[in-house]
């Protein structure tokens, strides 16, 4: 470069910087087609048609009422089983699980009889170089989306139709696309888990508790100061794979309930009962390499016992350690605009509420943060929505119904009148919040915009839990190694596979112990069909002696109900639980307690992992729905039809308009 050119460039760079130019932004908006027809889809997870109608009739949801009056409202057929990852995959691909291979939150490895994540698979670098205790990757590790089938925005892309898909579940890591997408449910925290919070306390009794989804740390106050560690991901650069962590200090005022938390590079002050907002933490791996995460601190109590909650560490959208958006600059763009934001799939910390680490009020405060972020980002996306498709997703509707159903259902084993008085309106409030989002959408759309408001499933009480593996054992399909050990082990550790014909993994799945497929399978191909039918029949006929009810409404033999190339990978049977019943807490991970049916005394009290007929979702649109009983996959076909894209034969859905 000549000197003059160099000077010119230097000046130009300065000018660009002063104008706020961002080199990434220039590439995110491709020159794509302007469409006359637009589709705005609001995906409100778990909104229930009965509740919705009740609130509308009570005049609490003016925007929904308006849309119903001007358009149409029908229950929306959900997936078998009606779990969010399965249901949203039906919508994404326009197929049923036979076409997208997501059958449950949890699948299993037939060789080890161990549960696995159904959504994605993470593999570390295959080729590495060992230098002493260092392991240097020579090839990149890989995260794979396990959902199969083509997403509707990928079809749109082929026809040059722009789409923004915001936090749709079952899309982590995001399917390759030039469209703007950010992953939602299924996106792990920085540890690669569904989310693990940390709780620091001086109360010894709390440290003894074994809780799912959280770690409790015993801390000591020495000279009004606490030293603690925030655990991070495993350091795969080291041979012994140690856990990484960030050290932090807490300085406590000797009198006032106020503390200063010192993280490397940042300090902040919290009073008792305050949240910190997002804080960035860097977990060091080796010199030059670290992993960036974001988390929130909540000072629950200073005295007499010290209690500090730290949210699961989310992937930092400004510097994502794992792929969460397409194009990769999209998360950075949002982070620049809004600062750090929740990236973990299901952001609300239901585990912390369930294990009494956060109380109802604290949980709702956290959920309000989530909602405020979603609202701000919705305004941003809605504002620039000029063409093609915008899909926007809200998770709080689902999470609040899970946690607060016990306070609207007097027959629930966890009903508490006092709490009901204070927090019984939490579910209604979230319905009114999404009504406000809908109102904004109604104000924005023009006559060329199709508005679709949808949910993936509805909700109902979860009063009794059904130990499916215990039922299998009692019915002679599953045998134990040590009878006396029943109820003490999970992950099938006490199962005698040589005498076991069937086992249940996940929330609705039941597998046969097939010879040739399972490591120690005993059921032959010849026996399979009859055995499936026999178990399904027995399950449907089972009556719980204590309640006098049938816990299971339908047991679906998957090959009868699934279509598509992945049907053979499905569990043999999917259980459709009756209203009020769900699989137990321990059965999904291979636990076999002694009783078949137990009351559910947890705070997690509403659910949808029942029979699809019990909990349909909602479909409300500004156009008449021609289909008499629309299903999730019909919406996918309708999107393609709107743009004149031929509906592929692999797609199960039919257009609803």
């Amino acid at each position, binding site marked *: 470069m000549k000197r003059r050119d160099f000077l010119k460039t230097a000046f130009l760079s300065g000018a660009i910087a002063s104008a706020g130019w961002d080199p990434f932004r220039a590439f995110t908006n491709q020159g794509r087609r302007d469409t006359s027809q637009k589709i705005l889809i609001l995906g409100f997870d778990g909104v229930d048609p009965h509740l919705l109608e009740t609130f509308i009739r009570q005049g609490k949801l003016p925007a929904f009422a308006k849309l119903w009056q001007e358009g149409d409202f029908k229950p929306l057929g959900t997936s078998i089983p009606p779990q969010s990852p399965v249901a949203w995959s039906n919508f994404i691909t326009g197929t049923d699980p036979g076409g997208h291979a997501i059958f449950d939150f*949890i699948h299993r490895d037939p060789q080890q009889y*161990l*549960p696995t994540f159904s959504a994605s698979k993470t593999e570390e670098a295959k080729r590495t170089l060992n230098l002493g205790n260092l392991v240097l990757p020579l090839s990149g590790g890989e995260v794979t989306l396990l959902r199969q089938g083509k997403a509707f925005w990928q079809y749109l892309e082929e026809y040059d139709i722009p789409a923004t898909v915001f936090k749709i579940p079952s899309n982590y890591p995001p399917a390759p696309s030039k469209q703007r997408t950010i992953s939602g449910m299924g996106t792990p925290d920085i540890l690669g888990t569904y989310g*693990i919070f940390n709780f620091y306390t001086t109360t010894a009794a709390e440290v003894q508790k074994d809780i*799912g989804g959280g770690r409790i740390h015993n801390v000591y106050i020495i000279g009004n100061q606490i030293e603690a560690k925030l655990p991070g991901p495993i350091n795969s650069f080291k041979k012994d794979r140690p856990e990484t962590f960030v050290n932090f200090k807490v300085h406590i005022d000797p009198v006032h309930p106020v503390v200063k938390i010192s993280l490397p590079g940042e300090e902040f002050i919290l009073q008792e009962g305050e949240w910190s907002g997002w804080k960035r933490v860097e977990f060091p791996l080796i010199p030059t390499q670290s992993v960036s995460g974001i988390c929130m601190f909540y000072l629950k109590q200073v005295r007499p016992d010290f209690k500090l909650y730290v949210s699961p560490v989310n992937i930092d959208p400004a510097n994502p350690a794992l792929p969460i958006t397409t194009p990769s600059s999209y998360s950075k763009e949002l982070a620049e605009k809004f600062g750090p934001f929740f990236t973990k799939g*299901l952001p609300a910390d239901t585990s912390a509420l369930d294990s009494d680490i956060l109380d109802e009020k604290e949980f709702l405060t956290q959920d309000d943060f989530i909602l405020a972020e979603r609202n701000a980002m919705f305004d941003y996306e809605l504002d620039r929505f000029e063409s093609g498709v915008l899909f926007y997703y809200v998770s709080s509707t689902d999470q609040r119904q899970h946690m607060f159903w016990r306070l609207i259902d007097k027959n629930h084993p966890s009903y508490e009148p006092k709490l009901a008085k204070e927090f019984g309106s939490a579910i209604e409030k979230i319905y009114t919040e999404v009504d406000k989002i809908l109102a904004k959408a109604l104000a924005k759309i023009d006559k060329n915009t199709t508005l679709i408001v949808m949910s993936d499933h509805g909700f109902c009480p979860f009063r009794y839990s059904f130990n499916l593996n215990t039922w299998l054992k009692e019915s002679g399909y599953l045998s134990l190694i040590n009878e006396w050990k029943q109820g003490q082990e999970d*992950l099938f550790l006490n199962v005698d596979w040589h005498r076991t014909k069937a086992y249940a993994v996940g929330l609705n799945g039941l597998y046969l112990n097939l010879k040739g497929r399972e490591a120690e399978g005993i059921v032959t191909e010849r026996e399979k069909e009859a055995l499936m039918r026999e178990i399904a029949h027995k399950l449907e006929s089972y009556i719980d002696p204590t309640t006098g009810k049938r816990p299971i409404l339908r047991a679906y033999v998957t090959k009868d109900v699934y279509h598509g190339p992945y049907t053979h990978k499905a569990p043999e049977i999917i259980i459709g639980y009756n209203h009020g019943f769900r699989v137990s807490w321990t059965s999904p991970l291979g636990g076999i307690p002694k009783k078949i049916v137990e009351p559910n005394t947890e705070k*997690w009290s509403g*659910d949808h992992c029942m029979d699809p007929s019990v909990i349909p979702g909602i479909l409300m649109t500004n156009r008449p729905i021609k289909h008499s009983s629309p299903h999730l996959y019909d919406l996918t076909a309708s999107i393609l039809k709107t743009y004149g894209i031929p509906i592929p034969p692999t797609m199960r859905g039919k257009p609803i308009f």
Partner: protein
Amino acid sequence: MGKAKVKLDKDLVERIKKYAEISGYSSPEEFITHCLEKEIAKLEESDSEEEIKKKLKGLGYIS
């Protein structure tokens, strides 16, 4: 492959020698290696089980 020496109690070594011969191992070293590998495999397995539980337990639907 490098080798490392490990100190064991004399009585234990005698017992190892005795049982290695009874069980048909070609040498006490082979017997020790086999035992240790079996134990380590167990630990590694339980490690991965712990890892699985940790990964899945944040999912609110299970405990």
